[in-house]
C-alpha cells in the first residue's frame, strides 16, 4: 500500500562532514565521577539508533547495565558491552559493521585506520551522539562503509556499460536475484528479477525454444526527476547497494537510494529512498514484464503481482510508505516479499504476509541481513596481501558466488547465476565442478542444495540413459527444471549456416562431473546421511552408465568413443583423456562406496567397476611422459595459438571451426582439467609435462580456462606465471572481457578464481582420510594469502606468508604441509613451508 504522511522537519541543512556511524566506541575509565551517567548515554544512543560500546569497563559492573537490562529487545542496536577494543571491533565486524561506520571517542589503542576518531571525553561523546541524532533527523538512508577493499564503485559514465553495471550490481539472496537496474529504469535497461529454478518456455526460434529464466515482478522502480548519474556503491561486505547523488550538486537535499535482498530472509527485498519531494516519487510498487502469464492485483496490505509460465511462477507482494516533511524532503520505504513455485498455478497469497505492525523494522531487517553476510564471509573470505586490485576482484567473485546459491532445498545454479538472462539459467557442469567446491568448503548447506538439485533429477537421467541404450543414469549437458537435456540442437554459425550443437549429445563427461561433485562435497563435509543415501545413488548410477558406455577392444582395453571433452574445438573424438579419466575415476570411486555389508550382487558389480576403471585407456604415453588429449590429437596440425593472436581468444572464431578442429589448438583445460580435478591419480611428473605442452596450445577461448591454468601453474610452483591468468579470471566481469557480462556474470569463472587461490596458490587439497593438505606458492608481489574454510565442520583459517603458514582452528586438525604431517595446536599453530622442496605435483 502506498501512503503518504507528513512529519515535522528536522534541520533544514545537511551536515556533510558528519559521518554516518553505526557504532561508537568510548573508553570508560575507572573514574566514574568524570562521566555523565552511563545509562543516560545508552538511552541517548538508543534513541539515535547508534550502537554504543564502552571499552575497558568490567562487564558485570560496567556502564549501561540498567538500561540494557530494562530493554532486552535492543539486541542489535544501542547495546552496551564491555571489553577490549579488538574484541568489540571483531563483534561489530561479525555484524557487518566495518571501520568506516565506527566512531571512537577518546584515545583507544588498536583502532584500524578506517575508524573515525573524535578527541575528548564525555562531552565529546555527547556531542558525537548529538551530531548523529541531528544527522538522522534528516537522513534515513544509511551509509555503507566505502572501504575500497570491500566496495565496487563503477563510475557510470559510459552509457554502453549500463547493462554491464546492472549485472555487476545484482543483489541476490541465493533464491531470488534482482539486477542492478537504475530506479528510473530508462531506455536500454534490462531490468530483471529471477528466481533460481523458475523457467518459462523459450521464444520459438530463439535457441530452439529451450526454457529460459522466468522474469519475475520488478520492485526497484521509482519516479525520479532529473536523476543523478549512475554512480553507485555495492558493499560486498553487507550486500547493500547504495546510490547517492553528487553532494556538490545536491547539497541541499541529496538523493539516496539503498536496496538489498535479505540474505537472512530470502525473498525479502528492501528499498529505501530519500530526496527532494519534487524529484522523488514512489511510482508503481511492482512492474511485471509485458508478457502473458502476468497477474497484478491490489491486496489487503499492499500490491501483489506474479508472473507465471506453464513451468513455474514468481510472485511478489509489496508495501510502500512515503513520508514527507515540511522542508520538502521525502522518504520512501518499500518492502517486497518474493515467492516462487513450480507449475502454472500461482499459489502465493499476499494476505499471507504478516500485518505491518508485526513485520521487522527496516533497521532490524538490515541488521539481520548484514549479520548474515558477515557470517558467510567469516568462513569464506580470502585476503591477499599486497594486491588491492585483485583483492577487490576476488571478493566480488565470492560475493556473487554466495548470493547465487540457496542454502536450503535444491539449488539450480545457472551459468550466470541470478544475475542475468544469458544462458537462460541452464545448469551446466559449471555448477558441479566450478561453483560447488567453493560452497562445499565455505557453506556446505548451499553445496548440499546443489547436489539435491542433481539427486532430484536422477530419474530423468536414468530415462536418458535408457533412451540412449545404456544403463544407469546420464545427466544432461544443459539442464533446467525437469532434468531433461535442454541443450539447443543447432544454431546459426558465424558463416551464416545452421550448425549442429554437439555438446548435448557428446559432452558425456557431465555425468562423471556430477558424481565428482558429490564425492568432493564429502571430502569437505562430514555428511553421513548423504554419504549413505543420495551419494551412493549418484555414484552407483553414474558408474553403471559408464560401464554400459565403455567398449572393450580385443585386448581388453576399454574405450569411450565419439565424445566431446571440455575442449569443444574437437568433436567427436575417441578416448578423450578428460572423459576417460573422469569415467575411470567415477567407476573406481563408486566401488569404494560398496562395503562388506552390501549384498553380493553389488559387491560383484563393484569389482567389475574396479576392473573397468583400470582397463580404460588413459591417454598416457610413457615415452613422452604426457597425455595425448584424445586419440589422434598428436597427428593434427601443430599450432601455437599465441603466435596467431593474443590470448584469450576464441580460436574457433579466429580460425574457423574446421581449421580449429584440424589443429592442435585447445579451447580450455582438457588434459589439464583432469589434473585439476584428480591431482592424485595421474602419473607422477605428468602434470608439469602436460602443462608445458598444452599451455602454449591453449587459446583460453572459454571463460573457464584461465582460472584453472592459474591454479595448476601455482600448484607446480610457478605462481608468478599463474598470476596474470588469475587476474584475467578475477576481472572477467568487472572489465567485461567477454563482451557478454551484460547478460549476467560468469559464475563458474568466479568459482575458478576461488579454486586457483585455494587449490593453486595455497595448495589446499583434501583426501578421503579427512586430512587437509596445504602447499603454498605465493607470487613475489603478494605479502600474504589468507583463506577461511569450513573443513569437516570446523572453521579453519590458513594464512601463508613468506615460508610461514599460520593455522587457526578450533580443534586438532589432520594437517599435511608439503609432504609432512604437522601437529596442530588449536587455536593457532605455525608451520614452515617450502623448505622441503615439496610440490603438490605427485603427492602421495
Amino acid at each position, binding site marked *: 500500500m502506498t501512503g503518504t504522511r507528513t512529519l515535522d522537519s528536522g534541520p533544514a541543512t545537511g551536515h556533510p562532514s558528519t559521518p554516518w556511524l553505526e557504532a561508537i566506541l568510548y573508553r570508560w575509565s575507572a573514574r566514574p565521577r568524570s562521566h555523565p551517567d552511563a545509562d543516560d548515554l545508552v538511552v541517548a544512543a538508543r534513541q539515535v539508533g547508534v550502537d554504543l560500546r564502552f571499552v575497558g569497563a568490567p562487564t558485570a559492573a560496567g556502564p549501561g547495565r540498567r538500561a540494557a537490562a530494562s530493554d532486552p529487545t535492543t539486541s542489535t542496536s544501542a547495546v552496551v558491552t564491555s571489553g577490549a577494543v579488538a574484541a568489540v571491533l571483531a563483534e561489530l565486524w561479525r555484524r557487518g559493521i566495518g571501520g568506516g561506520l565506527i566512531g571512537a571517542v577518546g584515545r583507544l589503542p588498536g583502532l584500524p585506520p578506517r575508524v573515525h576518531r573524535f578527541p575528548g571525553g564525555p562531552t565529546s561523546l555527547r556531542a558525537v551522539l548529538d551530531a548523529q541524532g541531528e544527522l538522522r533527523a534528516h537522513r534515513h538512508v544509511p551509509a555503507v562503509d566505502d572501504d575500497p577493499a570491500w566496495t565496487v564503485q563503477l563510475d557510470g559514465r559510459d552509457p554502453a556499460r549500463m547493462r554491464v553495471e546492472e549485472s555487476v550490481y545484482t543483489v541476490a539472496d541465493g533464491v531470488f536475484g534482482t539486477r542492478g537496474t537504475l530506479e528510473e529504469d530508462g531506455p536500454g535497461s534490462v531490468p530483471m528479477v529471477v528466481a533460481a529454478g523458475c523457467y518459462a518456455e523459450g521464444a520459438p526460434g530463439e*535457441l530452439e525454444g529451450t526454457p529460459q529464466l522466468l522474469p519475475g515482478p520488478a520492485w526497484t522502480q521509482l519516479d525520479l526527476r532529473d536523476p543523478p548519474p549512475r554512480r553507485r556503491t555495492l558493499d560486498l561486505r553487507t550486500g547493500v547497494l547504495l546510490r547517492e547523488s553528487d553532494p556538490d550538486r545536491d547539497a541541499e537535499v541529496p538523493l539516496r537510494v539503498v536496496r538489498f535482498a535479505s540474505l537472512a530472509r530470502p525473498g525479502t527485498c528492501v528499498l529505501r529512498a530519500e530526496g527532494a519531494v519534487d524529484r522523488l516519487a514512489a511510482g508503481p510498487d511492482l512492474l511485471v514484464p509485458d508478457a502473458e502469464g502476468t497477474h497484478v492485483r491490489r491486496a489487503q496490505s499492499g500490491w501483489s503481482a506474479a508472473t507465471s509460465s506453464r513451468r513455474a511462477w514468481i510472485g511478489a507482494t509489496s508495501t510502500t510508505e512515503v513520508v514527507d516533511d515540511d522542508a520538502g524532503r521525502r522518504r520512501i520505504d518499500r518492502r517486497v516479499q518474493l515467492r516462487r513455485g513450480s507449475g502454472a498455478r500461482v499459489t502465493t497469497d499476499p494476505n499471507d504476509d504478516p500485518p505491518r505492525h508485526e513485520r521487522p523494522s527496516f533497521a532490524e531487517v538490515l541488521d539481520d541481513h548484514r549479520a548474515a553476510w558477515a557470517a558467510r564471509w567469516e568462513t569464506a573470505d580470502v585476503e591477499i596481501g599486497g594486491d588491492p586490485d585483485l583483492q577487490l576482484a576476488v571478493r566480488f567473485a565470492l560475493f556473487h558466488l554466495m548470493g547465487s546459491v540457496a542454502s536450503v532445498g535444491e539449488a539450480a545454479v545457472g551459468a550466470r547465476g541470478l544475475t542475468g538472462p544469458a544462458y537462460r539459467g541452464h545448469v551446466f557442469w559449471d555448477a558441479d565442478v566450478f561453483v560447488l567446491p567453493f560452497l562445499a568448503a565455505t557453506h556446505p548447506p548451499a553445496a548440499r542444495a546443489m547436489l539435491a538439485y542433481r539427486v532430484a533429477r536422477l530419474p530423468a537421467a536414468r530415462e536418458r540413459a535408457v533412451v540412449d541404450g545404456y544403463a544407469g543414469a546420464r545427466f544432461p549437458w544443459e539442464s533446467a527444471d525437469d532434468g531433461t537435456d535442454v541443450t539447443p540442437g543447432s544454431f546459426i554459425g558465424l558463416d551464416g549456416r545452421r550448425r549442429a550443437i554437439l555438446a548435448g549429445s557428446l559432452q558425456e563427461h557431465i555425468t562423471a562431473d556430477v558424481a565428482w561433485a558429490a564425492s568432493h562435497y564429502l571430502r569437505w563435509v562430514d555428511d553421513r546421511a548423504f554419504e549413505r543415501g543420495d551419494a551412493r545413488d549418484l555414484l552407483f548410477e553414474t558408474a553403471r552408465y559408464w560401464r554400459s558406455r565403455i567398449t572393450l577392444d580385443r585386448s581388453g582395453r576399454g574405450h569411450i568413443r565419439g565424445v566431446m571433452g571440455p575442449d569443444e574445438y574437437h568433436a567427436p573424438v575417441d578416448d578423450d583423456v578428460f572423459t576417460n579419466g573422469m569415467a575411470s575415476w567415477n567407476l573406481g570411486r563408486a566401488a569404494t562406496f560398496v562395503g562388506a555389508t552390501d549384498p553380493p550382487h553389488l559387491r560383484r558389480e563393484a569389482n567389475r567397476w574396479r576392473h573397468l576403471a583400470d582397463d580404460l585407456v588413459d591417454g598416457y604415453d610413457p615415452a613422452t611422459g604426457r597425455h595425448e588429449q584424445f586419440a589422434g590429437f598428436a597427428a593434427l596440425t601443430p599450432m601455437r595459438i599465441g603466435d596467431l593472436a593474443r590470448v584469450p581468444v576464441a580460436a574457433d572464431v*579466429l580460425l574457423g571451426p574446421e581449421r580449429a578442429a584440424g589443429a592442435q589448438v585447445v579451447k580450455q583445460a582438457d588434459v589439464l582439467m583432469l589434473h585439476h580435478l584428480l591431482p592424485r591419480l595421474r602419473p607422477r611428473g605428468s602434470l608439469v609435462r602436460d602443462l608445458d605442452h598444452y599451455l602454449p596450445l591453449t587459446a583460453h577461448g*572459454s571463460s573457464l580456462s584461465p582460472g584453472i591454468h592459474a591454479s595448476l601453474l601455482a600448484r607446480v610452483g610457478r605462481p608468478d606465471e599463474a598470476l596474470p591468468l588469475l587476474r584475467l579470471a578475477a576481472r572477467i566481469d568487472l572489465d567485461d572481457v567477454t563482451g557478454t557480462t551484460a547478460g549476467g556474470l560468469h559464475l563458474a569463472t568466479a568459482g575458478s578464481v576461488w579454486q586457483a587461490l585455494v587449490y593453486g596458490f595455497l595448495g589446499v587439497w583434501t583426501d578421503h582420510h579427512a586430512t587437509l593438505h596445504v602447499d603454498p606458492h605465493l607470487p613475489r608481489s603478494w605479502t600474504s594469502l589468507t583463506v577461511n574454510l569450513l573443513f569437516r565442520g570446523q572453521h579453519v583459517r590458513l594464512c601463508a606468508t613468506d615460508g610461514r603458514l599460520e593455522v587457526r582452528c578450533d580443534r586438532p586438525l589432520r594437517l599435511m604441509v608439503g609432504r609432512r604431517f604437522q601437529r596442530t595446536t588449536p587455536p593457532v599453530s605455525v608451520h614452515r613451508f617450502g623448505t622441503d622442496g615439496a610440490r603438490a605435483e605427485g603427492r602421495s
Partner: protein
Amino acid sequence: VTPAPAMTTAVLAAIPEGPELATVAAAARTMAELLHVTVTGLHVGPSDPSHLEELSRRAGFPVRSEPGDPVTRLVAAARTGGPVLVVVGARSSARTDTPVGHVALELARRTTGPLLVVPPTSTLGRTTRPDRALVPLDDDPRTTAQVSPLVERLEDAGVEIVVTHVFDPAHPPTTMDQPAHAQAAWGAEFLARHGQGTHGLELRRGATWDAVLRCAEDVTADLLVLGWSQHLTPGHARTVRRALDRSGVPVLLVPSGAPSRDGGP
C-alpha cells in the same frame, strides 16, 4: 524543361548518358520517395535543351547540366547544394569483374554527405523497393553514430534494417563459451549498444570485406549501408572498395563527415 532548383533536402542523381541512366535514376527516385524528398539530376556535359529534356524524360525527374569535368562538377554540386543523398552509377559496364568507375570512386572520396553507388545490376526502384538494408557495424560507437541518422530514416520508411558484425582476424572475441548461448548474449548486448530497433543481427567471422558481401547475399539485402572514413589509401577501406567493386546491390556510403586529407576541392 524547368531548370532544376538549388537543392535542399533533395536527392541529387548523377545522370550518365548510357544505358545505366535508367538504373541510377530508378534508384534515385526510390530513395527520394523513401526519404520524402525531391530528386533532381545533374548531367555533366553540353547543355542542349532537347538533350536535357530527353534525359529528364528518361530519368523521370528534372535534370540540369553543367559543362566540365564530371568529378569536379558533381563534387561541387554535392557540396553546395546540400542534398541528403547523392546517387551515382558504379560503372558503365555491367560486367561484375569490372572495378568501380573513376567518377564513383572520386565522388566517394570527396563528397561529404551520403553517397549511393548503384551497380548496373541493381534492381532498386525498377523491380524492387528496398525491403532490407544490411548495416555492418564494427562495435565502434562512432561508426554507429555516423550511420544512425540515415538508417533511422530508412527504418522509418519501412526498410528492414539488419545489422551485421564481423569478427575479423584482428578483432576476434576473447571467448565463446557455448557458441549458441554466447553468440546470443554477445549479440543481444551488441544490438543494445548499436542497433536498437533493428530487425536482427547477423554475426560473421573472417575478413570483413568478404564476409559483408556474403552476408548481404545471405540475408537478401537490397541495400548495403557502410560508414567509412573516406581514406582509400592502401590498407584502408577494403570493405568499401570490395563493395563498390563487387556488390550486386546499391552501396550507401556514409562518410564520417570530415573531408579526407587528400579529398579537398
